[in-house]
């Protein structure tokens, strides 16, 4: 099985001398389901941002979907990002567009016609429980609704990798389980999933549904096969 994401001795710090991640070596196989845990400030979001090319490693080598991120052209970065769905904690949207238009953006960027994604869009909106909010502006959504919308946007273009940073942080337990079931379904379809979370209930539920590899980030390093 090929690696979807491969860290080789990857180090990163936001300032010179600062080391958030210290020589991380990690391989996420295609179609795998990983959960990343760790204390606040341990570097979970940083690791996910590296996987989404929002940050670049200071040292070591990072390969995403078979491509070494060092020296990638801007166009290649765009191409990779279209193959990776990201749910980050900021949940940034285009405020002048309504929810439906925002969720359609990844498909538009792929060059799809509206009629080709209208059904997927409607299904996803229903799945994440945003039916009736299609014409709402992002500023009119609650933080929980924004989080659900971000997940829908991350998966609408059927990316090969799904990265989610605390995807259930602002939703209730029932909705959290519901969103997790979406990611589990996508994983069963062969998508690679990496979730950073503190939510122990979510981790247990994921382990009951699919084989989950648990990663613990501590002191800038990854402990593989961590226990809860």
């Amino acid at each position: 099985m090929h690696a979807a994401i491969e860290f080789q001795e990857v180090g990163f710090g936001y300032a010179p001398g600062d080391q958030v991640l210290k020589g991380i070596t990690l391989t996420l196989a295609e179609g795998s389901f990983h959960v990343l845990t760790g204390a606040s400030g341990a570097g979970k979001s940083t690791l996910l941002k590296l996987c989404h090319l929002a940050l670049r490693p200071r040292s070591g080598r990072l390969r995403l979907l078979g491509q070494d991120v060092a020296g990638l052209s801007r166009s290649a970065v765009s191409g990779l990002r279209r193959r990776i769905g990201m749910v980050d904690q900021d949940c940034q949207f285009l405020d002048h567009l309504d929810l439906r238009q925002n969720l359609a953006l990844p498909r538009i960027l792929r060059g799809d016609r509206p009629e080709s994604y209208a059904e997927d869009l409607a299904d996803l909106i229903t799945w994440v429980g945003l039916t009736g909010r299609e014409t709402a502006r992002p500023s009119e959504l609650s933080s929980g609704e924004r989080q659900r919308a971000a997940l829908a946007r991350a998966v609408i273009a059927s990316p090969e990798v799904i990265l989610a940073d605390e995807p259930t942080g602002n939703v209730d337990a029932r909705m959290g389980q519901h969103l997790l079931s979406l990611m589990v379904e996508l994983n069963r379809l062969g998508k690679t999933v990496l979730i950073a979370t503190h939510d122990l209930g979510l981790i247990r539920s994921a382990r009951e549904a699919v084989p989950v590899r648990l990663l613990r980030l501590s002191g800038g390093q990854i402990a593989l096969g961590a226990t809860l």
Partner: protein
Amino acid sequence: MRRAPRFRIVPGNGSLGWLVGLGASAAGFLAVLALAFGLAALRLSDSWDGALAGAATIRITGPEAQIEARVAAVLKVLDSTPGIAEARLIAPGEQAALLAPWLGETLPLQALPLPRLVAVALEGEGPDAASLAHRLAGEAPGAVYEEHGRWQDALSEAARALTALSAAAIALTFALLWGLVALGARAALDTHRGILVTLRMLGAEDAFITRSFLRRMVGRTVLGTGLGTAAAAAVLAVMPEPDASAGLLTGLAPKRAEWAVLALVPLAAALAALIATRLAVRRVLGGVR
């Protein structure tokens, strides 16, 4: 190539967009007037060249009693001079009409001791001026041969200066338009930086983002310069018909195909806006991963 979505990826810029449109209108208006001025200068230069080339005048002065004999002598000399196609005595009435714009129509010109004028049409290289002057001095004292060509260089230079002035005015207008569009694009990009970052994170290519910004900025510029061009064309259309006495002042309205040249102003403005916006977007995108 990504298809254009059915909604605007980049929102409007409110008053900034209108400001760019208004500035583009003013630039279009001024550029068209400057262009019309330049075209009129070129036309005037051509008409001066046409009128002065191949022509000369002989001015005859002398005592009243001898003037007719001198005129006859001059015509006789010209008749036998190589390089002269035609020589014609300008009638007093015609001479008065030529002077009327300068001296007025009420002045009794017949009371003034005006010289008699012979209009000469040249052929080929024209006559040997020195030889002709020598013969005229002998046959008709007081007759002076004047080739119009000596005015031609000065007038051509004046026309060239007017054309250069017009070109400079057009260049300055476009420089201002460029600056306005570049500033507008930079301000729009600063305002919508969040959109730009979000689009990049979703995997938008630089070309897609650039096109989204270009559409708005170039659209405003073309609309603005188009309106400015139309307004200037309307002004030019009601300008008085050309009048020989007023020259450039009344001949500003373009002639036939020249109207089509005015349409180049919005096209050139679109090109300038395209390049200015593209450079501004590229500069800002360079700072976004």
